């Protein structure tokens, strides 16, 4: 049958693509300089963040401004688990870390997973009260939760080391981890969204009352999107902490959330492909734009660096998108192998018909 033939083809194509990515990572990990590697890692992490927020906001229609808070939880939990007792002692010099955290140490992978799971639980705790609120109020409540988490982490000296944060973290994050998790995240969320559960989530977004009438349990599904979204945000937080070698509570602020919101908006609320592309694009631009903040020499003119220009440009882009490209780059369209073949097929047709006309 034709349908299963194309399904097989698609599966092989996807596997092939994964192999190419793996080869690419292998090559990059050995050949590229640290600056490029860092950007690639950050790009993967941003994709995880964008796709996970898209699940909550784009697919389920729950406009959440709390993603930075989830990242913070993941970052702290995993760091506190994979840091060695010696590094912990060095960090917690004002007040010692509580037992048993002070003596625990585990490998990176389980630490990350536990970080993600704890964040997932936080997603449950945040998502449940949020069932009562909608729209603007939901955005504000989730933002409130995120800020509460941030300030809390800034003050729990005995657990998080307060405003000093955690420093000297071992660098575990490399392209294999970050891109590996990115692929897993995209796979997981894509499969979720394409499944019956995904349809239920989208129905909630499209029309809550109709969804209820079709027997969909709103509470269960809304919380589900929060839990899954939070889980992956926690993983991203853990990866970022190890990449930067620090966890600074004040870095999980509203700007970070804005950036992720920008990824989702620009890519299209409801397009995983869009979030992937934009996650990479924004990570890359954020790094490259640092250029405008340092002094430049253009045509012999010395232009002094303008601090804050990077963020300003981002703000301008955000406004531009909001005002003129409301559906983002891809709207709700997704990449698919079938779509690609259909597209190239149409181009072939156009080219051959043109040739016929000329002759």
């Amino acid at each position, binding site marked *: 049958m034709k349908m299963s033939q194309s399904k097989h083809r698609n599966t092989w194509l996807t596997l092939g693509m994964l192999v190419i990515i793996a080869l690419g990572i292998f090559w990059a990990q050995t050949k590229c300089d640290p600056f490029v590697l860092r950007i690639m890692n950050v790009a993967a992490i941003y994709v995880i963040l964008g796709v996970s927020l898209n699940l909550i906001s784009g697919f389920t229609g729950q*406009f959440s*401004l709390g993603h930075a808070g989830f990242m913070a939880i993941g970052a702290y939990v995993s760091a506190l688990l994979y840091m060695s007792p010696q590094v912990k002692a060095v960090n917690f010099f004002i007040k010692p870390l509580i037992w048993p955290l002070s003596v625990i140490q585990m490998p990176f992978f389980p630490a990350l997973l536990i970080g993600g799971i704890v964040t997932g639980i936080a997603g449950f705790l945040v998502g449940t*009260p949020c069932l*009562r*609120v909608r*729209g*603007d*109020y939901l*955005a*504000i*409540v989730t933002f*409130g*939760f995120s*800020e*509460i988490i941030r*300030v*809390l982490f*800034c*003050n729990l000296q005995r657990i998080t080391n307060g405003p000093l944060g955690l420093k000297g973290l071992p660098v575990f994050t490399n392209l294999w981890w970050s891109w590996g998790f990115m692929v897993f995240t995209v796979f997981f969320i894509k499969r979720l969204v394409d499944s019956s559960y995904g349809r239920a989530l989208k129905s909630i977004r499209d029309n809550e009352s109709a969804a209820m009438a079709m027997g969909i349990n709103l509470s269960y599904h809304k919380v589900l999107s929060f839990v899954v979204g939070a889980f992956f945000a926690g993983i991203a937080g853990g990866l970022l902490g190890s990449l930067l070698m620090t966890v600074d509570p004040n870095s999980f602020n509203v*700007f970070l959330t*804005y950036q992720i*919101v920008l990824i989702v*908006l620009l890519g299209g*609320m409801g397009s995983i492909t869009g979030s992937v592309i934009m996650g990479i694009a924004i990570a890359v631009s954020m790094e490259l734009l640092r250029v405008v903040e340092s002094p430049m020499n253009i045509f012999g003119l010395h232009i002094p660096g*303008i*601090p*804050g*220009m990077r*963020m*300003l440009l*981002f*703000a*301008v882009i*955000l*406004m531009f998108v*909001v*005002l003129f490209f*409301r559906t983002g780059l891809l709207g709700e369209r997704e990449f698919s192998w079938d779509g690609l073949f259909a597209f190239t097929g149409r181009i072939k047709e156009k080219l051959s018909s043109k040739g016929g006309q000329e002759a």
Partner: protein
Amino acid sequence: MTLTFFMQNLMNGIALGFIFALIAIGYTMVYGVVKLVNFAHGDIFMMATFFVYFSITLFGLPWYLAFMAGIILTIILGVVVERFAYRPLRTAPRISSLCSAIGMSFLLENLAVVVFGGRQKSFYRPDFFSRTFTVAGVRVLTVTLVTIGISLLALLVLNYLLYRRKIGLGMRALSRDFDTARLMGINVDQTITFTFAIGSGLAAIGAILWALRYPQIWPFMGVFPGWRAFTAAIIGGIGSIRGAMVGGLLIGIITIMVVALLPSLAGIKDIFIFMILVAVLLFKPDGLFGEE
């Protein structure tokens, strides 16, 4: 704890409360009329202080003219923001307007960083405001009295505009029932512009009073007063001006009192605001006075 200590802090709390009330009214009026949470309001507050600052330092205006200039420029800013960032999205889904407000806030903050520089600057405080009185053993800064006085005056003017002028009628009508009011011939664009103008003007007054008390100004100074004032508006019942006033005073007094009576909690005081905000939104979203 002596009575003097208590009264001292109460006075400060009330003064601060009035400032929050002025800002909160801006949030509540805008929400009432266009059903939008103007996330950029706190940043308009911030811009006001910089407008005054540069009027004095760059253009050498005397302080009373600088204050005027600051207020006028802020009103213009508020109107421009509405015109270009909010009006085009009036028919779009709510999420777009929300994103626009957030984006505007982001933009103003970073614009300030780039144009004004990220470091704190010192707001000019004319000597007049630094003098102190002593009333029944309580030391009162002139600033405090002026704050209370000016705020009350502003509120009286607002009351007059809302209840005795046609434009105020328009605002109240749109607040109650947008579509019907529009069909009844209320000039929607003009009324909304006016709403933003008043809100920004009040925020500017609040900003000046704030900066006279706390003379450090910097691009992100609007964030916390903004959230405090917003919480005040929610507690009072978003859409209700009376509620914004009461909410503002409450938050002002609580803010000062918590620091005065429980100094050990000073570091966490910032969360209190968010906890109150979240709690109110979850359990009593209509606040004290509901929608007016």
